[in-house]
């Protein structure tokens, strides 16, 4: 049977597309100059950067002047969240987010609390979905920001963005709407005008672009306080250099992903449906975490396997050349179970035995077959060692 490397942890980072590497090389050698210069080298780079910006802006239905390159999604989130709260602190100091948001948002929320802001944390339901009604109830006269993670990074739940938009529009005053779209980008159509967000962050390395570059959409007329200070090279919001080759690679990755976005989504949806179907057919006592079907991002399948521990599973898969993720406390650097699964009402055992597969366009059905076959073997082996399994299945001694 096939062995080698099967990568199914694409929500952390994706392998760069070969075309991206080719594109980047040009800008690491000939076109390395920064654009802020009137001599010919600077001019040609300025034109190139403008075209990269156009490409990324188009993918979100934004204008190029609303698009700011950053050194990744985390930078984009920080520039937006800190920038908007600082610029509006005189008007109000209340912020809303949810307990299942991406750590970028939650650590920023903790920082805001530390400097005197009040944060309301919305709770998810059992599928990881945060209801618009809760948002409505949490809004106060001094609310200045609502931030959300469009696609949950653990279970792939797609938050109800249009309903949030309507709630915010109906509020008596302007509330800044920030969306972390890093997991959503390239997995569902995103139109900033239709979503009516004020800021939105994306990252290149989640869509087969290079690591270390992202972008922040900022709706025209939105005031963000400057949070990073320094010399302007590429962009006013993030001063200092941002690699030209990284932006070139990002634009190429966007081109590849958005040339046929619907086709890409269809491929991923088909593959993850097949993965789930095979898992449920081959492994008894397995349970899906998060919603089934359209409410879930097309690339994410997260299951809990009863009676066994996730770190042991990922180690054994790793020794078979397969990379996946787990929510087990034993596998996390902080020795803590997944806060997302716990917030959804799952217990420690379910988090302990959770395995997350996140697929990309490079994964195939053959890979899915191989992974499921190996996982079925590993599950049987680890269950044969497990006191929990033995005590609940005495007939299988």
């Amino acid at each position, binding site marked *: 049977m096939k062995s080698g490397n099967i990568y199914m942890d694409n929500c952390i980072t994706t392998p760069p597309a070969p075309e991206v590497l080719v594109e980047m090389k040009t800008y690491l050698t000939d076109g390395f100059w920064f654009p802020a210069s009137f001599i010919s080298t600077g001019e040609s780079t300025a034109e190139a950067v403008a075209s990269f910006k156009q490409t990324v802006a188009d993918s979100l239905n934004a204008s190029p002047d609303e698009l700011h390159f950053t050194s990744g999604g985390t930078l984009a989130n920080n520039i937006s969240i800190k920038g908007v709260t600082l610029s509006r602190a005189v008007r109000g100091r209340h912020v809303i987010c949810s307990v299942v948001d991406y750590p970028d948002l939650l650590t920023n929320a903790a920082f805001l609390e530390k400097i005197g802001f009040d944060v309301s944390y919305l709770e998810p339901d059992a599928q990881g979905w945060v209801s618009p009604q809760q948002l409505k109830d949490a809004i106060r006269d001094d609310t200045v920001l609502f931030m959300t993670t469009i696609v949950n990074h653990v279970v792939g739940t797609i938050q109800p963005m249009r309903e949030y938009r309507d709630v915010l529009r109906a509020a008596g005053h302007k509330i800044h709407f920030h969306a972390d779209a890093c997991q959503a980008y390239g997995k569902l159509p995103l139109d900033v005008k239709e979503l009516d967000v004020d800021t939105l962050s994306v990252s290149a390395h989640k869509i087969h672009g290079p690591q270390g570059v992202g972008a922040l959409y900022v709706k025209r007329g939105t005031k963000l306080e400057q949070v990073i200070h320094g010399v302007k090279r590429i962009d006013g919001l993030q001063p200092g250099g941002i690699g030209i080759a990284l932006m070139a690679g990002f634009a190429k990755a966007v081109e590849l992903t958005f040339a046929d976005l619907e086709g890409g989504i269809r491929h991923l949806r088909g593959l993850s449906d097949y993965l789930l179907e095979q898992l449920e057919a081959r492994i008894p006592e397995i349970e899906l975490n998060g919603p089934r079907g359209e409410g879930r991002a097309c690339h994410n399948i997260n299951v809990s396997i009863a009676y066994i521990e996730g770190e042991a599973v990922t180690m054994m898969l790793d020794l078979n050349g397969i990379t996946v993720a787990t929510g087990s406390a*034993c596998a996390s650097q902080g020795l803590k179970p997944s806060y997302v699964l716990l917030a959804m009402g799952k217990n420690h055992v379910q988090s302990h035995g959770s395995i997350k597969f996140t697929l990309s366009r490079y994964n195939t059905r053959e890979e899915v077959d191989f992974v499921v076959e190996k996982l079925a073997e590993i599950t049987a082996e680890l269950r044969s060692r497990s006191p929990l399994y033995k005590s609940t299945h005495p007939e299988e001694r």
Partner: protein
Amino acid sequence: MQYSQKVLDHFMRPHNVGQMENPDAVATEGSPSCGDQVTIYLKINPDTLVIEDASFLSYGCASNIATASIITDLIKGKTLEEAKKVTWRDAMEALDGLPPVKVHCSVLAADTVQTAISNYEIAHGLKEVPDFGKETIIEELKKIIYPQVGEDIVSLKMVKYVGFDDGNVLIDMNMMSFDQWRENVAQEIREHLEKYPAVKNIQINFP
């Protein structure tokens, strides 16, 4: 730090795994609600008090399974007195080390062996049920590993004061407010002490 080859070998092909028919001593430690769980089975010769066979089941990670595998190897053929001296440090050494953050997963298997031996000794009148007191608390605290460095919190002098009065445990800890492991350590202390019927209340103070 990665797992050693020895850990991987014992994890992938563990020795002594499985439930034992008619064991002379059994112990289960840990709980699935908070982490790993291990069961140890021992076959003990009543005349020589030699451990003639040992096996285990584990609901745990690679570190936990590998430790259970090697520690059952280490105690087989030893007398109870000899086996009582086998600690998680011996198991860790025999495994060519463990990443610091994974040491706490390994301690559970070693503890369970000691509990199984103690259960046997009590059942066969070889020792009295020990009174619960300050000493018991300190012994339990020695089993709690500070994940950052992979050493126990007593050796690291993180425990400033231990008191026990009428079911109330009072522990003063020496851990900085910014220490990311405070919550983990406090939870582990509770898990270790709550299993004793003599303990009614646990108060853990941080500076």
